[in-house]
């Protein structure tokens, strides 16, 4: 709506001031009026897979990518998870790989019994190749240590 208003004002100003130079209204079409993304699912998957596959990725960027993925309303495709596991191997961070797998399991929500076994089955070749255990194999899918809540301390 504002775009049409602005265009009308602009054309009125032009005719009013008798500007004969042809001006390129390049600024107007490029303005994004909504937050909707035009990226397809495949493009999204490719973007994240290539992000994790970067050879020079460091620990911070890896965590940033994982955190952003976990913030979205989706469960990453197995090939994105595979790329993340390989990135963990490149930065020599074993704990991060386990943490990401736990996060994926948490993202499954109510459907964890359907989705999580499928994901583990899909990424198992990579896990065995890199020597990463699943959280269940390490035994941390059940609580181990209890921590006193900060609200219970005096």
């Amino acid at each position: 709506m504002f775009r049409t208003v602005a265009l009308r004002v602009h054309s009125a100003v032009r005719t009013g001031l008798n500007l004969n130079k042809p001006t390129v209204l390049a600024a107007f079409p490029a303005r994004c009026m909504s937050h909707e993304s035009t990226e397809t699912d495949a493009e999204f998957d490719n973007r994240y897979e290539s992000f994790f596959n970067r050879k020079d990725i460091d620990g911070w960027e890896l965590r940033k990518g994982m955190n952003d993925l976990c913030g979205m309303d989706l469960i990453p495709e197995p090939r994105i998870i595979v790329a993340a596991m390989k990135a963990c191997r490149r930065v020599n961070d074993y704990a991060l790989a386990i943490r990401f797998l736990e996060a994926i399991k948490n993202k499954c929500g109510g459907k964890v019994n359907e989705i999580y076994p499928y994901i583990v089955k899909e990424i198992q070749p990579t896990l065995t190749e890199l020597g990463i255990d699943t959280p269940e194999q390490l035994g941390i899918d059940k609580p181990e240590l209890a921590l006193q809540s900060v609200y219970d301390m005096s």
Partner: protein
Amino acid sequence: MKNGSRITHLVALREKEKGDWKKLTIEEKKALYRASFCQTYSEFTAPTGEWKSIIGCTLFLSALGVWLYIFLKLFEESKRAQLKRMIDLQVNPIEGIASQWDYEKDDWKK
């Protein structure tokens, strides 16, 4: 907790982490995890049982409310009789309670 020995153990473990992960034992893997993360997902999402104390406090306060109501109901008749006596005695007839009572109509002034 001995400071020196724990830190050197982690330094050695970090070196081992750079090598083949298949050579890490389960305990070492867990130690690496705990070095980075204080609690596991299952630990910080574990139920706290807080709902029991919430229900308990709510019911306790509701009970206090019910007791207050019972107390007021218990003395309702005697309070009404006390008020009637005050009006009959014309207590504070100029600015106080009896000034609000209309003695012709035998009701409160509108």
